C-alpha cells in the first residue's frame, strides 16, 4: 500500500493540475486579503478562523476534482490492465488515490497557514502568539483531513461512473456548492456543512450550537463507511469487463 501511494505521487509529476491549484489558491488569497485590508480587523484568532472558513470552502472543489482527475487518468491512459496484473486490486488503487488526495489537502492547508500569516501581517493584525499559530495549524490540518472524509460521496460516484469525468465533476461541483451554501440548513445532513459547522461553527453559521456536533460527526462518518462497503461490493461484481 505504501508503494502504491508513492507511485501516486510519482504519477503526479509534470501535471499542470498542481500549478492550477496553486494559482487558484493565490488568487483566492489575494481577494480575501484585499477585502480584509479594507475592513477593520479584530484579533489574530478570529482573523485566521474566518480566513480558514473561507479557504475550507474552496477545498472540496479542489480535492474532489483532483480525485476525479487522477481516477479517470487510469482509464484514459489504459493503465488499469497493467496495474491489475501486478497485481493491484481496484480497491487498493481507490484508497491509495484517496490517501494521495488527503496528502494534497494537507499540503494545501499548510501552505494556507503561511498565507494566512502573511495576510495577517499585511492587514496589520500583529498580535500573533506561538500557541495561536499552533492552534491555526491544528485547525487547518483538521479541515484538510475532515474535508477528505466529507468528500467520500463524490469518490463513490466517481467509482460508479468508472471515471466519466464530466458526470463526476458535475456531481462534485453541485455537491460542494450545496454543502457550502447550506452550511446552516444542512448541518447534520450534508457532510461538508457538518464539517464546516464542527470546525468553524460560531464564525460562519447561525446555529453554532455545540450539541449538534455529534450529529454532524455521524453525518461525516456514516457515508465514509458506506462508501467503503459499497465500493468493495461494486468492484467484486464488476470485476473484469469494465477494465480493459
Amino acid at each position, binding site marked *: 500500500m505504501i*508503494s502504491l501511494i508513492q507511485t501516486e505521487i*510519482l504519477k503526479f509529476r*509534470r501535471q499542470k493540475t498542481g500549478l492550477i491549484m496553486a494559482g487558484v489558491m493565490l488568487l483566492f488569497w489575494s481577494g480575501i486579503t484585499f477585502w480584509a485590508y479594507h475592513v477593520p480587523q479584530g484579533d489574530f484568532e478570529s482573523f485566521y478562523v474566518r480566513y480558514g472558513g473561507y479557504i475550507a470552502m474552496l477545498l472540496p472543489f479542489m480535492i474532489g476534482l483532483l480525485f476525479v482527475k487522477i481516477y479517470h487518468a487510469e482509464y484514459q*491512459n*489504459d493503465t488499469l*490492465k*497493467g496495474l491489475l*496484473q501486478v497485481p*493491484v486490486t481496484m480497491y487498493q488503487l481507490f484508497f491509495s488515490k484517496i490517501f494521495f488526495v488527503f496528502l494534497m489537502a494537507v499540503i494545501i492547508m499548510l501552505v494556507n497557514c503561511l498565507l494566512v500569516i502573511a495576510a495577517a501581517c499585511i492587514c496589520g493584525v500583529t498580535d500573533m502568539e506561538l500557541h495561536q499559530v499552533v492552534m491555526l495549524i491544528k485547525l487547518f490540518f483538521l479541515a484538510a483531513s475532515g474535508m477528505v472524509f466529507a468528500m467520500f460521496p463524490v469518490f463513490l460516484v466517481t467509482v460508479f461512473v468508472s471515471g466519466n469525468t464530466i458526470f463526476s465533476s458535475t456531481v462534485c461541483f453541485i455537491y460542494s456548492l450545496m454543502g457550502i451554501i447550506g452550511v446552516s440548513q444542512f448541518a447534520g445532513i450534508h457532510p461538508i456543512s457538518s464539517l464546516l459547522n464542527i470546525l468553524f461553527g460560531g464564525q460562519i453559521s447561525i446555529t453554532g450550537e455545540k450539541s449538534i456536533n455529534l450529529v454532524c460527526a455521524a453525518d461525516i462518518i456514516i457515508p465514509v463507511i458506506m462508501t467503503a462497503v459499497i465500493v468493495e461490493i461494486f468492484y467484486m461484481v464488476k470485476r473484469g469487463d469494465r*477494465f480493459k
Partner: protein
Amino acid sequence: MDEYVIETEQLTKVYGEQTAVDAVSIHVKKGRIYGLLGRNGAGKTTIMKMVLGLTSVTSGQIKVFGKKMKGQEKKIYPRIGAIIETPGFYPNLTGTENLEIFAKLRGTSCPDAVKNALEVVGLPYRDKKLFSKYSLGMKQRLGIANAIMHDPELLILDEPINGLDPIGIAEIRNFLQDLSKERGKAILISSHILSEIDLLADDIGVIHNVRLLEESSMEGLRRKNQKYIMFRVSSTATAAQILEQKYGTVKYRIEDDNAMRIYDMSVDISVVNEIFITNGVGVYESRVCDESLEDYFKEITGGVGIA
C-alpha cells in the same frame, strides 16, 4: 507429467449477443513459443484477457501453471508478463519513470531491472522523452520491456510487433526465441501475420471466426504440407494432355493458362521438361515448391485465408 503452462478447456466468451470466443482449448508448453494466428476480430485478444483474468469467462476453464487463477492472483501474476492490445502508460512520465512505477509496485528486487529491460528492447535508459511523445514502435517496445522486466516464466504478448520496424521485429524475434530456448520460458504470442508466426512459433493455434480450427506443432504442420513441382508453360492445356499420355495417372492441378502444379514427386523435372519442349510446349519455369502455410489455411478456412 505433461504439465502445461496454460491450458484452456472449451473456453467461451459471450458479449451480450456476440460470441467473441467459442469453445477454444489451447495448450501452451514450457520452453516453447505458441503462436495464436487469426484475422482481426478472430478472438485472440479476448482469449488472452480471459487467461489473464482481465475479463470474465462465460464458460469453460483455464489453468495457468496448473492452477486456477481465482484466489491465486498474488502467486500467479508475478510469474506472468503481458501486453494486451495497445501499451498503457502514463503520458506525463518518461519511459524509465513509467517502468520504475511498475517495478516499484511489483517489488522487483533487482535494482537494474528497469535498465536491463530497456536495453533489451533498445530504448535509452533515463531518457528525457515523455511517453506521450513516443512513436508507436517505441510505445510497443516499452510495453515489451514492462512485460519482461520482472523475469516472468510466462509471456503473453498480444500482437507485440505491431508498429515495429523490420529490424525491430527481427530483434524482438531473436530475443523471444532466446528466452524460450535458452531460458525455458513459455510464450503465448498472437498475430494476424502468418509469416511472422511461421518464423517464430513452435506451436500454432489457428483461430478463425472465434473458433480454434487447428492446433498443432509447426513441424507437424509443415510435414502435412505437400511438396509439388511448379511449371510455367506456354499452354497448360497441351501440357496436361502430354502429361496424361506419358504418365497416365499423375496428380496435377492447373492454376491458369500458364501455371500448373504436379504433386507427384516421383517424376523427374528434367524429363518432363524435355517431353514438354519436344512436343512444342514452351517451358518458362520449373521448380520444386512447398505448399505454403497460406495455401493450407486457405484450404481449412474454406478459401478466405488467414492472413
